[in-house]
């Protein structure tokens, strides 16, 4: 003991020094995040500057615009930046929204089940199952989607009549909104379940008992007291799941169809069988164009939009949780 005392008191590992070193490291990580944000927006700027708000609007064929951007870098010094991303944004909104909605409802039921109603053996099975589903790599979900779900939808769910009715516009092969939403739901629901059930477990037992004591049955008590007071956790889990869903690129690149097409719900239910391509997969599919300056700016502008929307959802979640502070457990 005595031998190493001088060492531990020595200047090399003195508290101030360690604190300063750790503090510097922490500052470095914060700086890295700032650098990331600045870099992405600086690289994205040419695209936004040329398009203005029209970047977010519909207009023309996205594939043709991307081709023109890529050609302009090869042929002349005049770079073309024209890019109207609405079909991609719309596809992202539909897929993310659909998946988050389904996942939210089912995750609520499953977490209530795990925490309150499942028999011991059932929750002992469900918890590892949820953990497993959350840890399966997205590319495996993508592979199963492409080789199992997509052919199933293409061969069995979509009728010949439906295929013929849109034959001139788009071909329905099974790569569809439906496949993307279903697989994405399975990917994000486990994340929600694990956060929701932590929240439900932390509800003050006194509140639950109070309600039970008033003669309200366990089901209603759970939903009116448990789920309500676990709302901060529900918001947190949903925000995390939305961030994951918006950013998911590889799995969606495999099964969403990779056509810059905007499915229109006004066409009736057939729109869920139509292919599309969200923002993330557009980056993955065109990554080999990264070295051409105008294309680089376009891809970074997509990344900037992803980053911005993820940040906005976090902010919204933070504001929502602030207003629910009274439910937070000490």
């Amino acid at each position: 003991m005595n031998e190493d005392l001088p060492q531990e008191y020595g200047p090399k590992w003195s508290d101030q020094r360690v604190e300063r070193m750790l503090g510097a490291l922490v500052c470095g990580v914060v700086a890295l995040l700032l650098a990331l944000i600045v870099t992405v927006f600086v690289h994205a700027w040419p695209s936004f500057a040329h398009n203005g708000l029209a970047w977010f609007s519909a207009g023309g064929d996205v594939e043709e615009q991307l081709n023109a951007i890529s050609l302009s870098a090869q042929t002349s010094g005049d770079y073309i930046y024209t890019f109207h991303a609405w079909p991609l944004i719309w596809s992202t909104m539909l897929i993310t929204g659909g998946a988050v909605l389904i996942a939210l409802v089912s995750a609520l039921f499953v977490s209530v089940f795990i925490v309150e109603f499942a028999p011991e053996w059932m929750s002992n099975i469900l918890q590892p199952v949820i953990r497993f589903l959350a840890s399966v790599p997205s590319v495996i979900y993508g592979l199963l989607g492409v080789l199992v779900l997509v052919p199933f939808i293409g061969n069995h769910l979509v009728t010949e009549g439906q295929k013929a009715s849109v034959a001139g516009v788009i071909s329905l092969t099974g790569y569809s909104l439906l496949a993307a939403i279903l697989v994405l739901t399975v990917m994000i629901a486990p994340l929600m379940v694990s956060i929701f059930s932590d929240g439900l477990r932390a509800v003050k037992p006194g509140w639950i008992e109070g309600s039970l004591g008033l003669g309200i049955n366990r089901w209603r008590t759970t939903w009116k007291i448990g789920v309500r007071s676990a709302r901060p956790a529900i918001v947190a889990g949903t925000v995390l799941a939305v961030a994951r869903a918006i950013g998911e690129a590889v799995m969606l690149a495999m099964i969403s169809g990779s056509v810059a097409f905007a499915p229109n719900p006004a066409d009736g239910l057939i729109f869920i069988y139509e292919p599309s391509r969200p923002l993330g997969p557009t980056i993955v599919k065109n990554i080999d164009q990264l070295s051409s300056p105008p294309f680089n700016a376009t891809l970074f502008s997509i990344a900037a939009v992803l980053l911005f929307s993820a940040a906005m959802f976090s902010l919204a979640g933070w504001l929502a949780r602030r207003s629910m502070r009274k439910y937070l457990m000490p």
Partner: protein
Amino acid sequence: MRDASTQDPPLTVPPVPPPDQHDPPGAHQRKGAVEGSATWSLSDRIGLAICWALGLLFCAIAVAIVVYLLVQGIKFLRPEMLWTPAAAGFSETETGGFSDALFGTLIVAAMGIAIALPIGVAIAVWLVEYGRPTALARVTESTIEAIAGIPSIVLALFGTVIFSSTALGFLSRSSEGVVFGRSFFAAATMLSLVALPLIVASVREGLNSIPRHVREASYAVGKTKAATTRRILLPTCRPQVATGAMLGLGRIIGDTAIIVVLLGATQNFAPVEGVGFPFNYLRGAGTTLTNFVYEASPTGNLNQPQKAYAAAFVLLLMVLALNAAVDIVHRRARKVGTWSH
């Protein structure tokens, strides 16, 4: 502190009596209140049925994924695939295996966690033990949260900017001043950011669960804060460090976007010429199992679904092994009583 640890064994916290597993605070009254659903109204009972249905559905999905990949894996996985590199060819019999992808996954996982673990532990220690000034601590917390929320494809694009800069040319291939920017160094560095938030969260939880009096006892015998952290706090929350590392590993081996962008669209190692042994590979492009599965799927460039299944099966085995390891650590820690809940 060179070899002090060999001379005097680190002070460890005497095991706290294990918390009763079936008795998480607050839950026991509820579990005790046995109430059948017989007296409930119809809508409540339908709700409970939905709970059961969804719970069973999740189990069924998990079983289906495992069984389906197991069947396909057994059908298509040949042992020689594990040590044959991918080759060009016209049919699935000519194209070799995916040994480079398998080794690539191992290399990337090792490098990524080697970067993320020390940084993650250091950040967690700073947040819990130091955390001054408070403003910086709050900023750091939000930063870690933000990093967890950044889509990995955005991290990948950021990586292309950093690693294509001439200053970092020594980490990848460069010719005539143009830096290629795709290498194991680049991919592993960005992947470590993916693992970082998980490690920080896990280690923080561990440090927070150590009672205050343990630290005070250590200060009372004259240990500095740094020594206390190193000798007492970190050894005590070893299970949480291990859990964080394994969760991080799972995310690293499962990530595809960063690999596709930063490791290169090749299926073989592409070592850089004229560099010493490990570095020629690490500075070169490569591939991992996730990238192989992506490229070998029908939407990729190779389109060899059978090999994609085989590689996905190997990947799934790795994930299952990591899950099992987390479980074992969890259980052992509970037995010893250093786990918080």
